[in-house]
């Protein structure tokens, strides 16, 4: 497809962007390659049923909002002992070979139109490199978006037997989860903002990654994010995602279990209100023997908010002795909201134990009755039950600050 961007999207723009950052030639080449591929690429797949398309991705407004040369962000990075947590420019200086090898190796920049756009235009990002045997906790990256559009790329590489827990948070002015939490910088204009984030995780043999991400952009923003990990032998990749902000978010979280005995957990949570629209997707491919996956998504919808969920458990021919589970639960607080879900199983090896379940409903009336009979007001009872609904997600979070943030955002939304 082709789109017309606000500032025009030409080779010159990309060269200018790359020159300004003093990038090596190979990186410029890759940006140009991604740019050239745009014409041949389509937007990501969206579920369609008779007469309905679950999300209209052109509503993400990228064509009108993207302004490649005026990207700006304020990012705070907290490292842990033994780990390299570097902004992209520094990382290029210090680990050029590593980046050249790993950038785009896990997540194909030409997966779709929006990933290619991101690969051509990203100006911010982080390298998290965990050397062999290092066990690190609580790496934190908090980014505040300060421009109409921002493209970010995060690359996580863990060497053999390394372990790391990470929180990546994105917000804009006034959001409690970002760097300053203060209302600084230019406010978004009337049309909103477009944030694009690609995350790739290359988990080496026997390594362990927990990648948490928290999105609390203002509600006139649009967000596209694709997170893709490849797990080596006996490696574990756990994703935890919280979506609270934006007008429309399209999020894909994916793991390829390519190593024998590898594991992945994909935990998603969202809380939509007013006319927010979340299109969240969790996918896992079992490509090797003895792999395990667990997909857990919990979401709450209020007002006219809408959620769209696709979960895919794909078990390949060679994935002997697979265990794969998926659960999706949506709580509807309002009659005007809508929850669409499609949990899919694609199984090509019979030596598999696979299941999925999905539920949609309102707050349990018996629970409400019990609590109100104990003298708790209906509003308070409902709020407690909603907070409780998120507990299975909170329990999986390793980074304490992340847990606190999610709890605070849930409470704020209920207030």
């Amino acid at each position, binding site marked *: 497809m082709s789109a017309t961007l606000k500032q025009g999207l030409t080779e010159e723009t990309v060269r200018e962007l790359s020159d300004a950052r003093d990038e090596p030639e190979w990186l410029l080449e890759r940006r140009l390659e991604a740019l050239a591929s745009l014409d041949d690429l389509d937007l990501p797949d969206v*579920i369609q*049923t*008779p007469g*309905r398309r679950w999300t209209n991705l052109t509503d993400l407004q990228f064509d009108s909002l993207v302004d490649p040369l005026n990207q700006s962000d304020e990012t705070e990075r907290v490292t842990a002992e033994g780990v390299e947590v570097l902004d992209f420019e520094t990382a290029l200086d210090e680990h050029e070979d590593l980046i050249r090898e790993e950038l785009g190796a896990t997540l194909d920049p030409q997966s779709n139109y929006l990933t290619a756009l991101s690969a051509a235009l990203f100006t911010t990002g982080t390298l998290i490199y965990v050397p062999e045997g290092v066990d690190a906790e609580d790496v934190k990256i908090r980014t505040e978006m300060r421009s109409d559009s921002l493209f970010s790329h995060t690359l996580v590489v863990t060497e053999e037997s390394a372990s790391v827990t990470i929180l990546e948070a994105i917000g804009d002015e006034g959001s409690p989860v970002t760097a300053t939490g203060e209302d600084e910088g230019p406010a978004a204009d009337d049309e909103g903002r477009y944030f694009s984030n690609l995350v790739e995780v290359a988990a080496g043999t026997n390594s362990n990654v927990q990648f948490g991400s928290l999105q609390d952009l203002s509600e006139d923003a649009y967000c596209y994010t694709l997170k893709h990990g490849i797990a080596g032998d006996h490696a574990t990749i756990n994703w935890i995602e919280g979506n609270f902000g934006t007008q429309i978010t399209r999020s894909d979280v994916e793991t390829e279990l390519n190593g024998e005995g590898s594991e992945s957990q994909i935990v998603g949570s969202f809380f939509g209100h007013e006319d927010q629209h979340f299109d969240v997707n969790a996918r896992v491919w079992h490509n090797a023997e003895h792999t395990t996956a667990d997909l857990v998504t919990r979401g709450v919808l209020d007002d006219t908010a809408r959620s769209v969920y696709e979960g895919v458990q794909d078990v390949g*021919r060679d994935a002997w002795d697979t265990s794969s589970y998926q659960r999706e639960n*949506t709580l*509807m*607080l*309002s*009659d*005007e*909201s*809508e*929850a*669409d*879900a*499609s*949990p*899919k*199983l*694609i*199984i*090509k*090896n*019979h*030596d*598999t*134990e*696979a*299941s*999925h*379940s*999905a*539920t*949609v*409903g*309102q707050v349990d009336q018996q629970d409400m009755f019990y609590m109100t009979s104990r003298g708790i007001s209906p509003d308070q009872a409902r709020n407690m039950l909603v907070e409780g609904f998120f507990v299975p997600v909170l329990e999986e979070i390793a980074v304490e600050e992340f847990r606190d943030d999610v709890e605070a955002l849930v409470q704020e939304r209920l207030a």
Partner: protein
Amino acid sequence: MSSDQDHLQQTDTEERFDFKKDSEAAYAADKGLTEDTIHAISDDKDEPDWMRERRLRALKQFQAMPMPTDWPGQPDLSEMDINEIVPYIRPDIETRGGVDDWTDLPDDIKDTFDKLGIPEAEKNALSGVGAQYESEVVYQNMLERWEDKGVIFMNMDQAVQEHEEIVKEHFMTNCVPPSDNKFAALHGAIWSGGSFVYVPEDVTVDMPVQAYFRMNTEGMGQFEHTLIIAEEGSEVHYIEGCSAPKYSAFNLHSGGVEVFVGENAHVQYSTVQNWSKNTYNLNTKRALVEQDGRMEWISGSMGSKATMLYPSTVLKGRGASDNHITIAFAGEGQNIDTGAKVYHNAPDTKSTIESKSISKDGGRTNYRGLVHIADGAENSSTAVECDALMFDNESTSDTMPYMEINESKVDVAHEATVGKIGDEDIFYLQTRGLDDDDAKQMIVSGFIEPITEELPIEYAVELNRLVELEMEGSLG
């Protein structure tokens, strides 16, 4: 049961479905599909003009619609060329609309249905029977006591002539319009045969009525139309059986089924499909259910090269309910893509979907289903349960449910599991003296029991026998 008996039973059943007859047609349309084809069919049937117009309109819609190719994981339809299909064959019988005595049929056709066991079943367990050979119903009969109560069971072509007003109102209008999908449009253009069932108010037809569809000629298409109208407070169980011998060229079956379930009425529609494995089976089946009515779809898909079948129910009236039970068994070279669609368009509506699938020897099954709960359909509930059993590493089992929930006061649950036959279960049965094959067969019989117990005993036995044959890989 001794192995001798096993052998006998198996040979018997196999022969029953896979024998061929030389075709002696009174009229056969040319291959392909043009307006001339429509006129030829309509002329041969001496149809009223409005039906001819509907056919022509459907043909235009068919020609304008693209082949469905973009469904994730759908069966490959690229080898199916509509222009290679013979759309209409009228067998050489004297009585148009079907005789009511088997002995009045030409010997080869009578012999066909004898082998399929239809006259025998009629004697024992059915209220009425219709039998279609190629494009026309050749036998139609119903017990007198139902006729006396005003129940109508006749072939669809005859109904167009004799019950013109009611057919005109219901035939492919608001239940399954030809615009629904490409194969519904094809069906609307060249449909022939099928059943018309009308059950008056408060009549309960307590034994099932059955229609049996047989394709005999290589490269033909069968497009029978079934229209069931159950008035307020009535009840009927309709059973459909299908088979064809195997040829090297493909056959196409594209049936259309429309069911109108009146207030507080109850319709059960059961199908055991055993088309030969060169048949594309692409059907559109839908029921509209009024207040407190109940629709049940029971489907066993055993045969065909590729099946795409998603019986759907629209719950229009408050308190209406739906129950889907489906079983799919895909062996070598088969792709069985089946499921259910339910629209909850009124409060207090209920649906349950139970799907069982078995894939073996490189076969592929897919459950594809949609549950839609409209805004305002308060206190509705739906429960979907899909279980799949896989035999080997060459087979594929997919589950693709879609849920669209626009109402908060609902109870929506979906569950699915996929797995292999448990080694422990087999071991247990072996310690009780069963060999490996018998043990597997017994586990599969248990797996599909929720379906077989819903069918009249003759059909349950039939289904079990077909499963046994599939398990032995001995059915063509």
